[in-house]
């Protein structure tokens, strides 16, 4: 196996006495589509926050193509190639759809503050390049006609698409999706399933997905990690996971033991 694009080793997070995540290890290839599932409070979002640098792990390591990310600033981790969406959509509500996308491209802009003020030739070149890229991306997501709308005025489904588009605008190597299907009705979820697969193929990037919607996970993910009370309890492809006793027990509670008595 070549060096994985994203890898965590014995990742652990303690808040005071509470162990939120204990010894979580996983690997992802360049274009893998992997899911992380588990009951509420299992520590999934904490894992996400450790990978993206919002929390610094108490122990263990996070590596992007072999290089450790622990202790780096969130912004630098994003620039290195890990983009994310949020469970409760965090768009720049009062800014236009176009500005939301343009902001994601900020770190790659090549003109300084003075050029920004004096609006030099370099400024205009860079701005028009950024704008074209943004419009191209919006076309792909069929949002280009809503370019000047404020983000908060978009319908829920389109806001979710915009958030994914914005994450992609940072040109990531790995895209982290935090419960993208939350609050979606069945056919919206169906569109989302197609969209996620299509994004992985179109942009040739790895996608790590946290999700509760089993149909989406089983349909989309090639490999799945199952986490319960901060511990990794199972790992494998969708069919293995579906009939793994530990997974069922974690999800359905102690029913299977009663069954045995």
């Amino acid at each position, binding site marked *: 196996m070549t060096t994985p694009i994203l890898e965590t080793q014995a990742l652990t997070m303690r*808040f005071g006495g509470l162990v939120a995540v204990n010894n979580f290890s996983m690997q992802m290839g360049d274009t893998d589509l992997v899911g992380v599932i588990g009951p509420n409070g299992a520590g999934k*979002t904490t894992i996400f*926050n450790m990978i993206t640098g*919002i*929390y610094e792990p108490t122990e263990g390591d996070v590596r992007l193509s072999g290089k450790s990310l622990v202790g780096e600033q969130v912004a630098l981790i994003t620039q290195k190639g890990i983009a994310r969406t*949020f469970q409760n959509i965090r768009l720049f509500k009062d800014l236009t759809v176009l500005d939301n996308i343009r902001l994601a491209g900020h770190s790659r802009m090549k003109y300084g503050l003075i050029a920004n003020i004096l609006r030099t030739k370099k400024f205009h070149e860079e701005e028009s390049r950024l704008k074209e890229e943004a419009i191209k991306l919006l076309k792909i997501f069929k949002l280009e006609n809503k370019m000047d709308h404020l983000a908060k005025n978009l319908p829920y489904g389109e806001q979710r698409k915009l958030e994914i588009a914005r994450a992609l605008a940072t040109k990531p190597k790995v895209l982290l999706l935090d419960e993208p299907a939350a609050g979606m009705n069945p056919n919206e979820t169906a569109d989302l399933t197609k969209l996620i697969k299509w994004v992985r193929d179109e942009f040739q990037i790895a996608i790590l997905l946290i999700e509760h919607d089993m149909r989406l996970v089983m349909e989309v993910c090639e490999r799945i990690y199952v986490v319960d009370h901060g511990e990794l309890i199972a790992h494998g492809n969708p069919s293995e996971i579906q009939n793994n006793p530990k997974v069922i027990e974690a999800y359905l509670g102690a029913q299977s033991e009663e069954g045995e008595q």
Partner: protein
Amino acid sequence: MSENVTYFFYDLFQYLVNGLAQGSIYALIALGYTMVYGIIKLINFAHGEFYMIGAFIGFYCLVSGMPLWMAFPAAMIGAGLVAVLVEKIVYRPIRHAGRIPALITALGTSLLFQYLGQGVIGADPKAFPSAIAEKTYMLGEVIITRTQIIIMVVTFALMVILYWLVNHTKTGKAMRATSFNMNAAELMGINTNKIISFTFFIGAALAGAAGVLVGMYYNTAEPMMGLIPGLKAFIAAVLGGIGIIPGAVIGGLVLGVAENLVVGFWISTYRDAIAFAILILILLIKPAGILGKNRKEKV
């Protein structure tokens, strides 16, 4: 050599006595800040003015011949009622709008009381009638005046009552519940609006008490008197751990003593600057204050 050493200790005790007296007053005002912040996360800029209003109610009661034991509660209740009114009319409608609009409204209310006071009562300092005969007691070389003792005793008594009220009564339990989680408290059937006005009432009553005590201690009152002590009391509340009731007391006493030591052993010109420096240091090093725990912001 020994003579300087004894002088040093006498001075030190004298500064401690002065510091504890001044600190008690800061603590009484700081309690109001901490309780209000604990409940609705609002830095009540106008709290210093409730202290001023309490002082003037006490002043006018004493001038009209009312004895101290009547003027004192009158000032507390009066300041408390003003606070309830302010909360109902000004703070309640703005509460949902977030912390900055609430802070700005509090700022506006504070200015309103200061300049209204100056317009109505007049800017010149009023001489507070000395309600009780002043007597000084000697502890070796250290001098303690009767007012200082009264301040410390009354402050201690009020804190004991407050501690009992918050921890051993039904309303106290409701107050603590509301400060932990307002929505959950509402679900449990607690009328949070009533609790919030009650908290404002208690906070302002304590500040009113501080106002009368200051009137007796420094025998002066003027409409702008609330500004600096108000800020200092806020520093004390943050020093002790904003939102934590015993923290306000500790913060107040520590700040009072620190100020007097600075004046005593160093030059007094930088006394206020040092108080602000303490505030900024706490905010940076241990924002939760002496008693508080640092809480990570949840994403």
